[in-house]
């Protein structure tokens, strides 16, 4: 009897049609069990350092979540047919979406638009803490760390903006159209914190710009450029919306031709 007798017996079934699925089940179970034990262990380890106010905040956030968000995002934020899962999106994402009033959505239109926030700052923070407690993700950006005025470079930011942002947000951050009624919103008047959070979380149609793609210093430069574009006076006169030649053509046809025809009528009628 060779030691490979048992193996031989098993290997007889290696081409069995259930072999691959059952192996998969075994693999998944072992990975899942390991993960659940490991992740169970993490809160245990941190619970000692976690202060009570934070756990209260999480509990409060969960209550708010169940009331205001769970109908679309699921009771455990696992997502559903109409809304994505929020596990792992991080506190920054919640702060951006809820803080700018985009969430909760007013209606099931193509895209959540910026409006007056429904939750106050404390409630937003509680919601963010709850979602962050589900799985790690980008944290809320500390406004004190956004030293764009000191550390940013406007001209470098402009080049970065034209390379990465202008194709959707327009050359001067006025926003632009995307497919199927979606759009890139205007960046004029958007707080530095939200610009930064949008870049790291990639809300809605926007891609995520990780710190490897655009370094934190470069992100500050982009913010500085956007702020410069916002405060830049209209150097050539009325800006016509800074959307390019469409409004210019409209003005040439309406005001330009209109006034010239008016004058022509006046000139031709005077001689009578």
């Amino acid at each position, binding site marked *: 009897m060779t030691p490979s007798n048992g193996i031989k017996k098993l290997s007889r079934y290696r081409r069995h049609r259930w072999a691959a699925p059952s192996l998969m089940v075994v693999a998944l179970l072992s990975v899942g069990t390991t993960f659940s034990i490991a992740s169970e262990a993490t809160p245990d380890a941190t619970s000692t350092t976690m202060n009570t106010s934070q756990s209260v905040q999480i509990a409060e956030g969960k209550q708010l979540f169940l009331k205001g968000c769970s109908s679309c995002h699921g009771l455990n934020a696992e997502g559903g047919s109409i809304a994505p899962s929020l596990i792992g999106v991080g506190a920054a994402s919640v702060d951006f979406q809820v803080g700018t009033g985009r969430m909760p959505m007013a209606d099931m239109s*193509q895209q959540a638009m910026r409006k007056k926030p429904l939750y106050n700052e404390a409630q937003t923070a509680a919601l963010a803490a709850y979602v962050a407690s589900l799985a790690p993700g980008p944290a809320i950006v500390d406004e004190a760390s956004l030293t764009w005025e000191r550390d940013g470079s*406007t*001209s470098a930011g*402009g*080049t970065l903006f*034209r*390379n990465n942002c*202008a*194709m*959707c*947000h*327009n*050359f*001067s951050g*006025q*926003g*632009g*159209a*995307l*497919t*199927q*009624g979606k*759009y*890139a919103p205007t960046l004029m008047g958007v707080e530095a914190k939200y610009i930064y959070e949008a870049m790291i979380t990639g809300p809605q149609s926007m891609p995520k710009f990780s710190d490897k793609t655009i370094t934190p210093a470069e992100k500050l430069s982009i913010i500085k*450029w956007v702020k*410069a*574009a916002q405060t*830049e006076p*209209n*150097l*050539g*006169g*009325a*800006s*016509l919306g*800074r*959307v*390019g*030649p*469409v*409004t*210019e*053509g*409209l*003005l*040439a*046809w309406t005001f*330009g*031709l209109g*006034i*010239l*025809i008016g*004058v*022509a*009528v006046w*000139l*031709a*009628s005077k*001689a*009578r």
Partner: protein
Amino acid sequence: MSKQEKVLGSVANYVDERTGAAKWMKKNLTKVFPDHWSFMLGEVALYSFVILLLTGTFLTFWFDPSQNEVVYNGSYEPLKDVEMTAAYASTLHISFDVRGGLLMRQIHHWSALIFMVAIVAHLLRVFFTGAFRKPREFNWLIGVGLLTLGIVEGFLGYSLPDDLLSGTGIRIAEAIIQAIPVVGSYLAFFAFGGAFPGHVFISRIYTVHVLLLPGIFLALITIHLMLVWYQKHTQYPGPGRTEKNVVGYPLMPVYMAKAGGFFFIVFGVCAFLGAVASINPIWLYGPYTPGQISAGSQPDWYMGWLDGLVRAAPPIETHAFGHTISWNILIPGLIIPGILFTGMALYPFIESWMTGDKREHHLLERPRNNPNRTAIGAMSLAFMLVCLVNGGNDIIATQFNLTINGIMWFTRIGLFVIPPIVFVITKRLCLSLQRADRDLVLHGRETGRLVMTAEGEFVEVHEPLSAEKIYTLTQHEQNAPLALPDVDANGVRGVGGMKGKLRKRASIAAAEQVPSPTLTEAKEIEHH
């Protein structure tokens, strides 16, 4: 004779003895031109061209048509230390560091837009009044040439500053060149001196923009005006106006004063726009880099329809024998514009073929009195407008909360559906207006005043029209379809084949109108 008159007289005599100008001046300064506001649209184009020459010359003093890489070090802070071409840097220099430079740039660009607007408005006036008919077909062709060159000239000017928007435009132009089957890639390499963007293109289009095309413009405008002079200006119909005379005012002094004043008004409007409204703020667009693009990139309005056509095209390509034919660029970028402009150029000849009218015309037609032509014009205009709307689809989508796909599908269907509907509606409208004219002539103006007669009957008082008004409303020609025989001498049907059949149907459509009231009809009404 006062002393002043003596001095002027001797100066005039001095010039005349050496040039013999007196006789020519006497004849031509008293030349009569008819008076109507719509005859001044072409003047607007002429004057804005003069403004373009003046402001353009100013800009050439500082513009550097070179694609050499430089690092910007001017006074516009947000672009400091950014690498860019010398062309873009010098445009920034003109805008921010040359006294009055930005104003001149803006006047130049605004007058370019007004120039194209005026050309199109002038073209519409000439088309809808039938001013292109014999003997003015050549002048129509020159006009179509000027329009086409104007589009090219404007596009080149838009491309010169080498900003993000103009580079995007050139990239699309390159794609259109490449879409020409077989020779496209070679032509593109030839134009750019290698692969896009190369380093010679700006200097090449600069020469074309400031030398070649303005020269051709000057030559064509001169011929255009000389033909107007020689053939005399058309006039609207009215009492005392015939095919053989021109009723109006002499060039000197009336039109000298009017035209001179109008020039300054056009200049004033362009300068006003340049002073108060920003146009082509290239410092916001940033320097061109092939890797960058801005949302809402648009051409100037006169290219907008072309951009709209390209945007509407579905992505269709054919790969055969190692070549790619991009129908999505070829059809909207070259074939449809080719058909449209050829059709426009040939329209005088097509109309004369349809109606069989080979006579000279110096009296204009009111648009309603030629319903078929007016409907064709309105139909073409509708087509262009739908294209133009799609050219701005991204701006319209964001400004009016619409979906860009919705606007695109509206265009794709609308391009086929809307023009025919516009044709039918316009033709019906013209015929209705003719009917209204007829009623007006036969029954007079309804005063709205009710009078009770002695018998107790209430009647509305109709005020008879003046003889002049009646003449103006009834003078137009009564059309008849061509008397094309159905069968030839041998009794065979279908004379001229398909072409003959088409001509017969076209001539019937062109002749459709409400008959003008006749004298006997008018008399009969009077007896009521």
